[in-house]
């Protein structure tokens, strides 16, 4: 009886672990996307951060960078801030309050959903954004973070 319970218990644990693993592998990592023709297929994390914090406003070839974000309560916005920029969402919000009201920076453009994000990235030259799923689209390039 005791043995049966332990084996039941261990199989339950194994199932749970498998479930968790499959859930986490399904959970999509947020990826940075840019408009093609590409600036770079590989970008430094520090550079992405500088772009999203308004410090870098031009691509190295001199063209204008247009920055897109999702709504601040969108889960993929939150994961982008935490995982890619390595900041807390409140830091990002406060930094932009400071930059935009002093004229030192121009706020990123907010889009409502990932479909709109893809459309903007595909059509606006110099655009940068992020998405939590890999959808291939003409004019959209996925960036590898170094």
């Amino acid at each position: 009886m005791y043995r049966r319970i332990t084996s039941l218990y261990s199989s339950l644990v194994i199932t749970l672990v498998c479930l968790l693993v499959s859930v986490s592998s399904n959970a999509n990592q947020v990826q940075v996307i840019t408009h093609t023709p590409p600036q770079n297929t590989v970008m430094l994390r520090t550079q992405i951060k500088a772009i999203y914090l308004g410090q870098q406003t031009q691509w190295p070839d001199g063209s204008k960078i247009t920055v897109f974000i999702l709504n601040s309560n969108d889960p993929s916005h939150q994961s982008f801030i935490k995982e890619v920029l390595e900041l807390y969402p409140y830091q990002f919000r406060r930094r932009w309050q400071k930059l935009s009201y002093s004229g030192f920076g121009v706020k990123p453009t907010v889009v409502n959903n990932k479909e709109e994000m893809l459309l903007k990235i595909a059509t606006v030259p110099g655009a940068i954004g992020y998405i939590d799923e890999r959808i291939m689209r003409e004019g959209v390039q996925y960036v590898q973070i170094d």
Partner: protein
Amino acid sequence: MYKLIKNHFILLPALFSLALVSIPLVSNANNLDKLSIGGFVSQGVVHTSDNQFFDENDDTSFNMTEASLQANYQLSSSVKISGQVMYRNWGKIESSVLDYLMLDYSFLSTDTTNMGLRLGRIKNDFGLYNLTRDIPSARPSIFLPQSIYLDILRDTITASDGISIYANHRFSAGNLSWHFTYGLYNVTDDLIVSILGPTIKGDFSVPEHTRYLKFTWEPPQGDWLISLGYSDPTASFEQELASTDQIGVTPGQFNYESYLLSYQYYAENWDFSLEYERKKTDSSGFDLYIPNVPEQFQPDFPPLFKLKNVSDAFYGQWRYLLSNELTFMLRYGRFVSDNNDKNGEKFAAASAINAPAFSRYTKTFTTGLNWQISEHWRIDLEAHYFEGTGIISPLVKVDTSQNTSKYWQLFAIQASYSF
């Protein structure tokens, strides 16, 4: 009212020319996405238990209305123009100002370095909060820590007309940003009263350009930052002598030199800020004389005041995010007018007008709450407990009769709508 008209005199032509420039740009639909606008409106209520800090009378004041309108226009990939007009009814001061209007030219942009120039009226990035000290949604409390962000000296630090160079360098060990600004700040009537009190009438001007310098270092993870700022404002004074004045004051000059160290640490649900300032102050001139009496018959007066001191100020602030919408804040700050006389006793003993020792320092405990109701609406609520009046009678204020209470409190609530 006169003040308002005088300010509009500068503001209106500036606005008008801005509008003229923007009409043909905006009327072309292709240009619309190059334009972005923003702003806010806010209204608050302040209750001051004693002393004259906010409004003419103690007690409750509704004279806390602020509004701004701001616009950016991208002229080319590297040049943009930004401006903001601001209306501010803040206790005793009512003003409409061109808060900033500048051309921003980003002349270097590589994978690791950015550099640019700003030209025009530029906000001063001094300390953690000066840049947005008048923006309700971008400050930690309605009243910034007064030990560092003295409202009575705000003219010298708010913005300057001049030129600024800025840069950002990214290394694997972290991120270095710096800027150097060279310009003239704008003097308002408020500065004169703040420094000399209401009894002496006259004009302040800015004899020399002020230099503002700031370096900021952040590690790659961005969980803390440290910055060092420097500024050296000067102000010179010339009395407006009335025919009834029994005694006159010769022209004089103030020089400040300020070093400000700022530190901020960020955790998931809280952040901690510490700022420490050392300020050197000196003055020249300000000798007393009897009007219409030849020099050889003038008695040998001591100067009205002679400043040569070093003073330190600091505050520590802890903010805790109770939820995404609610932030709780605790702060302690201290200000002294003179490091050699921290409790003001030497000053009080030597004072001919019986100025109290507590007029030379201030200790402040503040607690507050921000409630971000929605993306646009926010409410701020706070209480300040003060010991001493150093922050409201800082320098030489001849008349301290309005600030008679050693212990005093300030309570404030403000609602703001930002867009």
